[in-house]
């Protein structure tokens, strides 16, 4: 077994998710991602199980590991109590740690995700918040939500929220000292280090692709090349 495999084994999710895969393919049969993407969790688990570093490195640099939706449908159905979704989480974690995520289109999306979600967590105390949910980025939210966002204070207050207010309640303002605790948790647990690493590798890739970081953010958020889906021609 190689060095990358050993690094993967350090992740508790891999230890929980990969015991003795018998390659039956039940995970692939049940997988919502495999239904539409060129994605086969059975093959991924098999590759990891073989422990060959060259194969694992190729996987860490590929689009393949970013197709999973982490719904964990595979966990329920595996006859050997493995979890392909957990193996994927460990692979993604290592890909980010080593900077390999910028080598694939789907991997590069780690940057806009990291930027948006962690801004919300560290500055607002929520993963998602109306103040940073722009209708232009979410046209699927429909005309009704465009109206909600245009009248946030009125609509949320009408529906019983304590929007931006003090004390408990729906969409309250999270006190600064609690946000400071979240930041301290990030500092102590490697969260801050992760954000810095993702930014460093993404800036390097943006430069390599001849883009400003703003252009790179928009491009990685919006661009989808042909070839990811099962129903597209090879």
């Amino acid at each position, binding site marked *: 077994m190689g060095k990358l495999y050993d690094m993967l084994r350090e992740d508790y999710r891999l230890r929980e998710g990969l015991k003795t895969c018998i390659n039956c393919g039940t995970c692939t049969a049940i997988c919502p991602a495999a239904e539409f993407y060129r994605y086969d969790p059975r093959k991924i688990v098999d590759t990891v199980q073989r422990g060959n570093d060259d194969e694992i490195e190729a996987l860490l640099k590929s689009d393949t590991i970013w197709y999973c939706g982490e719904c964990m449908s595979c966990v329920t159905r595996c006859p050997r109590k493995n979890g392909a979704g957990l193996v994927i989480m460990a692979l993604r974690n290592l890909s980010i740690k080593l900077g390999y995520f910028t080598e694939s289109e789907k991997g590069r999306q780690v940057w806009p995700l990291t930027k948006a979600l962690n801004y919300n967590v560290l500055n607002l105390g929520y993963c998602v918040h109306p103040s940073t*949910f722009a209708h232009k980025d979410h046209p699927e939210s429909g005309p009704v939500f465009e109206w909600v966002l245009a009248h946030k204070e009125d609509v*949320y207050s009408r529906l019983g929220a304590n929007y931006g207010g003090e004390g408990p309640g729906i969409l309250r303002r999270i*006190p600064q000292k609690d946000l400071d605790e979240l930041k301290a948790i990030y500092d102590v647990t490697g969260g801050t280090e992760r954000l810095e690493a993702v930014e460093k590798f993404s800036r390097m890739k943006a430069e390599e692709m001849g883009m400003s970081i703003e252009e790179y953010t928009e491009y990685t958020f919006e661009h989808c090349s042909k070839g990811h889906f099962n129903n597209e021609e090879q």
Partner: protein
Amino acid sequence: MIYQGKQKIWSDYQKEIPDDHWFYVRSCIRQNFFPASEKYFLGICRDMLGKDIYETEHHTTCGGIAYHSDTIPQETAMTIVARQFALMTEAGYENLVASCITSFGNYTETLETWHEFPELEERIRENLWKACRREFKKPRYVAHASDLIYKFRGEIAARAKYQLVDRESGEPLRVVEHIGCHYSKMFPHKGVGGAEYPCVLSGMAEAWGGKVIDYPERRHCCGFGFRQYLVKANRGYSVSNTHKKFESMEPFHPDLIITNCPGCPYFLDRWQYVISEMTGKTYGENGYGIPVLTYEELAGLVLGIDPWDLGLQIHQVAVEPLLNKMGVPYDPETKYLGLDRKDIMKPGLPTFLKCC
């Protein structure tokens, strides 16, 4: 009681849900898209049933969406969870109830992983002390908010003003229930009915007079997929999965859909709008789509709460066809009014999906 045969098998799928005294943690998604559902969860449990459900302003996101979008390490996510446990301990509670299924999965994953790897629990305790100077006891019980509404479904039925029955035909309404992956698939023994027979929602629907539809893709994911929705370039995955579900349920003519997870009702509602814009196709009767409700909204309707107080006006799919079938009264003139009946105009209209 000694259970035998099928009773014994069924008893293995049940949860002994504590009756009272809960520490409540909110849901990011539910607060954004279905805020009144949280208001009426507390309204039903606290005000109507007199239960002790405590909330502190100091709790935050559990970080579940950031974690499942692979943007924070596992230790960061677990230490945020540990901080919520510390707030619960400090407030003197042992039972934790989460308004979100991803949170429910996140809390359960944390506890189950610590059970398998006790050294990790010790490290998280050290992390929390270093970062926040807090300590915690693990919860005695972790529930999803729907577990409580399921437990109290009979009390709600006893106070019902309206039933899930077609007022004209007298027939039960046909209900699609969507259980939510992180409730029943990650740790099946933690959900009512497990992964095979999840009955947390079907139990509610049947107690309130409805008939649950069993259709081929009943257990299929709504298609959220975290990064598969949050990144604009990936949303084909999300809408494709919802489309698969709707094509599968369509022949069974559902009157409504009831959902467990805070995200699923958003996707099942909004992707109907998107599918109609993309293809011109609408599901449900007469071009109105199939109404999608949270379990709190459905409980609220049954109890006679005004639909616009429940926030049904911020769904994209019109709920009026369902209200008409149930005989629930509503005032179209007040649907889109703001606080204190302020005029804040009305939303625009979709191209194909009919609105009232």
